């Protein structure tokens, strides 16, 4: 006797507007069908009528939990179309700001993931406070709290202020202590361990065939990270190592993100030591329609949610076609495979561990 349940579009536990139609047999899940498109606004069509640098602020609103990463992806595509190399110091400045953005995004994920497991806002309050401190540091460096628009062709818009290094070092010491507290709080808790170990297992072969990316792929034992495979900025000089776990369940995905936060802290410390002197400013934004040399461009970056890719066909003043590969879109399509045979209460643990942002799923 099969029953169908509707997990409606507006729900406290789906991150955004997502509708799931769940078919149950008693308490076991038989089929999960996601219905999306409630936040679709046609970004790929809007960009075709704007000049190049005018659509940088559109790209930031595609993933609003880590806006600087998408803006960096788009401006790199324009730079490669123009044939411009960025300055040495700008590579390190961009790396520091992007790793800070990654820490902020993973802290937000940790708070809402523990909300889904029923912890009722305890971890949420702690991690949102830490995220607020990281956003203050980013506000010192760029001037704005949430939508930065600070990437320019050839560099950044403002160099780091003179007292950035002391503030960053004291904040990183504080964050290290807090991450140890979070681990001790969660990993010795028998309820958390029961709810996450052995739940939603994804094997290595299935992960590659289903096309998932990011921490979901690395938690199933696949050694693939864009920062080390198609390396960019200064990751190779700073000896970046991807973090991998083998089991493939919800606990492994949680562990990969905690280890990535620790690796980001180490990268920022090393980059602050080794940063060269010089000039990091890029071209001013009034240069709205730059001279274009290449016809087709492909760029890849490692966003906090996975691997993002842009394929752009250029015209003289506006892009002719911009095709965005969003990581959350393809991660959501693996939900049906992972949730077969699990209990109904496990569905939200699995959904929370995929780290979805719904505006990324329906651009």
């Amino acid at each position, binding site marked *: 006797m099969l029953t169908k349940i509707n997990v409606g579009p507006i729900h406290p536990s789906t991150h955004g507007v997502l509708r799931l139609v769940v078919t149950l047999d008693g308490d076991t899940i038989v089929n999960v069908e996601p219905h999306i498109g409630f936040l679709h606004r046609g970004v790929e069509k809007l960009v075709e009528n704007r000049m190049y640098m005018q659509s940088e602020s559109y790209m930031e609103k595609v993933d609003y939990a880590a806006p600087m990463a998408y803006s960096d992806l788009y401006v790199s595509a324009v730079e490669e179309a123009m044939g411009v190399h960025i300055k040495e110091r700008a590579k390190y400045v961009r790396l520091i700001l992007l790793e800070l953005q990654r820490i902020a995004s993973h802290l937000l994920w940790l708070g809402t993931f523990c909300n889904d497991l029923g912890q009722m806002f305890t971890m949420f309050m702690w991690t949102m406070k830490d995220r607020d401190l990281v956003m203050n540091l980013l506000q010192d460096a760029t001037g704005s709290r949430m939508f930065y628009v600070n990437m320019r062709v050839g560099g950044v818009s403002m160099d780091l202020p003179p007292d950035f290094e002391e503030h960053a070092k004291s904040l990183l010491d504080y964050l290290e202590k807090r991450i140890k507290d979070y681990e001790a709080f969660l990993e010795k808790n028998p309820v958390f361990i029961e709810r996450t170990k052995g739940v939603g297992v994804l094997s290595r072969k299935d992960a590659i065939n*289903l096309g998932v990316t990011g921490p979901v792929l690395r938690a199933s034992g696949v050694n693939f990270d864009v920062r080390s495979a198609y390396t960019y900025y200064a990751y190779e000089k700073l000896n970046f190592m991807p973090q991998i776990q083998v089991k493939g369940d919800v606990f492994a995905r949680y562990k990969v993100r905690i280890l990535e936060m620790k690796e980001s802290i180490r990268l920022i410390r090393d980059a602050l030591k080794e940063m060269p002197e010089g000039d990091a400013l890029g071209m001013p934004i009034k240069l709205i329609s730059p001279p274009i040399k290449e016809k087709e461009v492909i760029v890849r970056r490692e966003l906090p949610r996975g691997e993002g890719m842009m394929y752009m066909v250029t015209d003289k003043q506006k892009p002719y076609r911009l095709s965005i590969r969003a990581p959350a879109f393809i991660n959501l399509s693996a939900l049906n495979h992972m949730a077969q045979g699990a209990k109904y209460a496990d569905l939200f643990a699995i959904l929370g561990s995929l780290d979805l942002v719904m505006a990324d799923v329906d651009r």
Partner: protein
Amino acid sequence: MVKLKISKNELIEKLNEAVKEGYNYLVKITAVDYIDHLEVIYFIRNIENKKEENIRLDIKDGERLPTIVNIFKAADFYERELSEMFGIEIEGRKVERLLLEKWDGLEAPLRKKFEWGADYKRD
């Protein structure tokens, strides 16, 4: 970036060969609208030695694409999005709308002949 331009009938053969050589990860399926024909591009990747390849083919209005869901399971969502955004029909499986589910009157918005902004009115 290696470019291969093939015809529509060789698609499934080429993809099976590529899977045997080790290209087992599908990155994206996308399309570009040049006004007299459409170009469909498949991006595939080899996870072991990190190489990428594109496979391109040309399609005119009204032709159908074969489905590749049996080779890569990741092609499910990509084919649904392609068929509703560009108006390409896919044969071999039943394709439902993904992003524009409730608006049956909206056809192929990413084509160049779709006049966007035509709905905008404010008093």
